[in-house]
């Protein structure tokens, strides 16, 4: 049983961490938290099932098409739901605009795809048990994303520009960085990461519209615990969250696993609103 807990815990944890990274990448580029992080997670599963399962595309092509579609959705998110309300960041209108867009995409999926969970195709086949692809694929996706982000931030100019905008948007603008284009790129990247999470977890979570709401919440928990914008904290918290949830799931049953996660989440954000691993607080006056 321990093997099953660890395998499924790490797998789910990796998914939550990836959705959390999607939140962070969008936040770092815009200072806005976007509910669409969960939506793209859902879309990764649904589009993967659509492209590979229904249209019969080969796996690499299906993956590429899924990520491209999610990235495009990220661009739409930035243009429709974030840019128009950025000026009034203090009013938190982005909470509402991104919630609205996330709901629209979710409802559209429910109507045009299915209101029931649909199967996600086997990608590679092979062994079952705790070493099955459905458990290690999310972990592999998580590792690939971390490696990709490290490369981006340390070896490319665009990646450094992302870091610059995250640290001091005003100074970055004064320096002449094309802030708008970079923000669009960040939203595309974040949404592709969320899509990758959903795709890799397709066999665990199935292609189901309601995953959007689930992932929006469970993906946010590691962000809250790890500190907004802090990817390392998010990954650690995400994996721990997955393990905690799956352990509770096996030991006391599904509902109480959700309750346990909720209680931990509520307790931590109430006791340490800035996250356990640090974040920043703005001056008010």
């Amino acid at each position, binding site marked *: 049983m321990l093997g099953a807990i660890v395998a499924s815990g790490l797998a789910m944890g990796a998914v939550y961490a990836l959705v959390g990274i999607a939140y962070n990448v969008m936040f770092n580029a815009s200072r806005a938290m976007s509910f669409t992080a969960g939506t793209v997670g859902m879309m990764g599963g649904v589009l993967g099932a659509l492209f590979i399962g229904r249209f019969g595309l080969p796996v690499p092509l299906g993956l590429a098409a899924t990520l491209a579609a999610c990235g495009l959705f990220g661009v739409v998110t930035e243009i429709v739901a974030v840019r128009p309300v950025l000026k009034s960041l203090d009013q938190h209108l982005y909470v509402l605009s991104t919630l609205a867009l996330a709901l629209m995409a979710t409802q559209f999926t429910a109507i045009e795809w299915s209101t029931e969970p649909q199967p996600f195709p086997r990608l590679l086949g092979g062994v079952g048990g705790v070493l099955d692809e459905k458990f290690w694929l999310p972990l592999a996706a998580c590792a690939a994303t971390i490696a990709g982000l490290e490369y981006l931030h340390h070896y490319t*100019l665009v990646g*450094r*520009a992302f*870091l*610059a905008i995250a*640290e*001091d948007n*005003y*100074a*970055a*603008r*004064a*320096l*002449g*960085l*094309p*802030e708008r284009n970079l923000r669009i790129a960040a939203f595309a990247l974040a949404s592709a990461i969320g899509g990758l999470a959903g795709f890799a977890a397709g066999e665990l979570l199935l292609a189901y519209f309601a995953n959007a709401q689930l992932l929006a919440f469970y993906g946010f928990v590691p962000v809250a615990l790890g500190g907004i914008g802090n990817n390392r904290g998010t990954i650690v918290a995400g994996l721990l969250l997955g393990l905690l949830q799956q352990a509770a799931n096996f030991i006391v049953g599904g509902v109480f696993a959700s309750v346990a996660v909720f209680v931990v989440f509520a307790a931590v954000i109430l006791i340490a609103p800035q996250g356990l691993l640090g974040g920043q607080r703005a001056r008010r006056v």
Partner: protein
Amino acid sequence: MPISAPDTLLRVADLHAGYGKIGILHGVELTIGRGEIVALVGPNGAGKTTLLRGISGLIRAQAGAILFEGTDLRGLGPSHIVRRGLCHVIEGHRIFTQLSVHDNILLAGYGLPRSELAVRVEEALAVFPEIAERRHERGASLSGGQQQMLAVAQGLVRRPHLLMLDEPSAGLSPVLVDRVFEAAARLRQAGGSVLLVEQLIDKALPVADRVCAMVRGAMVLDRPTGSPGLSDEIAAAYFS
């Protein structure tokens, strides 16, 4: 709109700007010639920083004209304006503390051709050997004075035709202030112009060719630095 004289680099005419409903600039006039260092002084809240932001596109001007090398900059964003050779080093040496010194300068040249960029970064670092030594360290590890040098170095990467420095001396020791002003003087030798916002008038006067003073959102004084009784005139303008 009269056509600018050939040696005029920047001409700001009747500029109105502010933040939301708050009007800060009420018809500012300013001219800067090629190869000129102009010191802009004025009491707190006079609108010096706002003027710089208006020129560099960080805030949008409500009315007036900003002619730079003959074209009106109004409505352009900062990323377009820096490409035309007008760079703004903002107040408070806000460099990126999480990035290395080298990367900080690299970003200031965002959009330049890759081969050109490497040359420019070395060129900017050469102006300040003390930070060139620490090029691989994070911005956070620099002292305040070194961070200010880094900020000025960022402004030099694009070989600007006009460099605007907002209070580069704030919080710096006198020696470091001199280092920053030396860099401004070097840029002029290379044919560039500098607009220097300063509270330390006595520091700014020796390097500047001309002094402009702002009070309450308007230019009240414009004199060559050599003119007699300048200091008293400025003081009178402040406490009027």
